């Protein structure tokens, strides 16, 4: 974790997740030795994030996106599987290692109205990580870093904000404060958990541009979690689509958007509004509710809602396999229809 390389190295990913699982036991009154039941929040997820890459993680509410982010931060303990940051395993970290881990991987939470302590000034909130990690122990240096983080997050002039309280700011300004609080540690990976979903549409673009800028200037890798397909096409390099705790499709943004393979991805994309009213396209409206993550469907977990399911689907659980020819960045999907003529991901 000591090497803080800013240069993109396509060969070695900065973050590598292998077969990650996070199950939450369900507490219930047990009669006659009923089996332990679990919520399968994250159920066998593997992916990599390259240096300076933006990976968008898309999926509907409750598909395990946020649990995945919390697990990556070490805020939830994975049930199985591992996460490697610059080759260091999360599982092998003690509490001190975890603290260093959190210095390099920072998170921007969804709700800027709830994630700032209402009694602390903006300056104190942004300075706190520095104090906790013992960085920039002298006052001037600390303040300089706080101001830099605030200005990088688009709060200018930063000195105007230092002594203000969260409730005096608008939602967009607060989210910038949250981002500044994450940036002040100069992390190499930023986990953004639906950072714009609580904001007005007019402010969303600003925050997204800010994140894109940060990637450009600082070479930060970003895992961008969202349920909104519309916001990601902008700046994500790759997209991973999640359904019920699993990645069902992953690939380059343009490739996935223009040539979706998994029926779930197709359905998601078909309902993204198109600005041109003359351009009509067929919407795929999925039937039924998301299945309960406690009692998962057999075989492919998407089959009860899948418009193109066939007799094999309830029986065989498809693996995430790459499609078509082997480019440098593979496009993979977990669907029996797609995988008929495909090969395993290398």
């Amino acid at each position, binding site marked *: 974790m000591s090497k803080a390389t800013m240069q993109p190295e396509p060969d070695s990913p900065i973050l590598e997740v292998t077969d990650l699982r996070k199950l939450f036991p369900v507490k219930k009154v047990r009669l006659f030795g009923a089996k332990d039941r679990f919520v399968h929040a994250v159920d066998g997820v593997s992916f990599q994030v390259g240096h300076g890459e933006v990976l968008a993680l898309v999926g509907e509410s409750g598909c395990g996106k946020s649990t995945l982010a919390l697990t990556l931060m070490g805020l939830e303990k994975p049930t199985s599987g591992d996460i490697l940051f610059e080759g260091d395993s999360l599982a092998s970290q003690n509490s001190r290692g975890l603290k260093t881990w959190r210095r390099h991987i*920072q998170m921007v939470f969804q709700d800027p109205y709830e994630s700032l302590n209402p*009694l602390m*000034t903006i300056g104190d909130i942004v300075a706190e990580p520095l104090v906790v990690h013992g960085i920039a122990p002298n006052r001037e240096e600390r303040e300089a870093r706080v101001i830099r983080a605030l200005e990088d997050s688009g709060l200018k002039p930063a000195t105007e904000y230092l002594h203000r309280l969260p409730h005096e700011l608008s939602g967009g300004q607060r989210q910038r404060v949250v981002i500044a609080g994450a940036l002040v*540690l100069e992390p190499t990976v930023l986990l953004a958990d639906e950072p714009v979903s609580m904001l007005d549409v007019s402010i969303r673009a600003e925050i997204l541009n800010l994140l894109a800028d940060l990637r450009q200037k600082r070479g930060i890798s970003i895992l961008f979690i969202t349920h909104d397909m519309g916001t990601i096409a902008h700046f994500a390099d790759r997209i991973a689509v999640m359904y019920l705790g699993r990645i069902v499709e992953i690939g380059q943004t343009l490739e996935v958007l223009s040539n979706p393979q998994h029926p779930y991805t197709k359905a998601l994309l078909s309902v993204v509004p198109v600005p041109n009213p003359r351009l009509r396209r067929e919407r795929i409206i999925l039937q039924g509710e998301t299945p309960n993550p406690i009692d998962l469907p057999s075989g492919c977990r998407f089959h009860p809602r899948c418009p193109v399911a066939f007799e094999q689907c309830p029986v065989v659980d498809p693996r995430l396999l790459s499609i078509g020819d082997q480019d440098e960045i593979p496009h993979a999907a977990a669907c029996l229809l797609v995988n008929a003529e495909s090969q395993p991901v290398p």
Partner: protein
Amino acid sequence: MNRSRVLARRIAWALFTLLFVVVLNFFLFRVLPGDPARAGIRDPRLTREAQEAIRVRFGLDKPVINCFESLNPVKLGSCEVNPFETQFFIYIGNLLKGDLGISYHLNQPVADILRARLWNTVLLIGAGQILAIILGMGLGIAAAWKARTAIDYLALLGSLMAWSLPTFWLGIILLFWGSTDLGLPIGGKLTAGGSATNMVDEWIDLGRHMILPTLTYTIVFLGEYMLIMRSTLLDVLSEDYILTAKAKGLSTFQILKDHALQNAMLPMVTLIALNLGFTVAGAIQIESVFSWPGLGGAIYEAVVRRDYPMLQGAFLWIAIAVIAANLIADLLYSTLDPRVEAG
């Protein structure tokens, strides 16, 4: 709005409330069933002249207020009377001089009796409150920190039990146990005809007398503080900014110290202020069980003997204490919580 104007407005409101209480307090004792005059003079063997003399001494010969001879039963009187010759304005006038009237029963100025009693109450209840606050908050923090563990459940169970115990019952049980097994005094503030010759002995004697009532008071109030502290702290700990703090790398202790406690203190301040306000009223039950010469005991005696001037004076003091405590809580709130500005 600037701070001094807020302060001035809060104080003005407090004074207005106090004025309202004074008026209400005065009329309350004049519409109560039972004529105050007859309450003071209960011996039927007294001659008419003697009764009249007593009425004059307590000012009960004057009309309650202009046009009304008495409010209970409503007796119309002359409206010709000079308003400043009525009981109401004489009372207000005396109040401004710090005179609360004369006790029917003890035949001494009420203000003097209450003053002597007040310090005893402040000593006993103050000690009990401080102990209850410290222990209750400590226990509440420990329980919230170790939520859903054995520590939490034990503290919760204990606090609920302590809270629901009847005060007088607990007092009697402790009195019984303390006086027989530990040889502690059974009541009062100092040993009667005390043998204490120097200050130190006297303080030790006082301390021995205080142990049992303070313990009772602490146990009864500890539960409330613990439960409120635990639940507000658990509330705060589930906030997103606590998770954010954790993601920033703060340890559990740092989160508790820097983020959670500060936010959880706000409801506690309100509770403490309210309880402190009623402290002046004394714990009537505790003071009765332990024969503690405090305000609570004085109020109890005054009720039994229908000593209206005494009760009226005590009520006024309680009102002042509650209003003052609330004012202090309000002002403290604006220092603890920077969001609170002009209300």
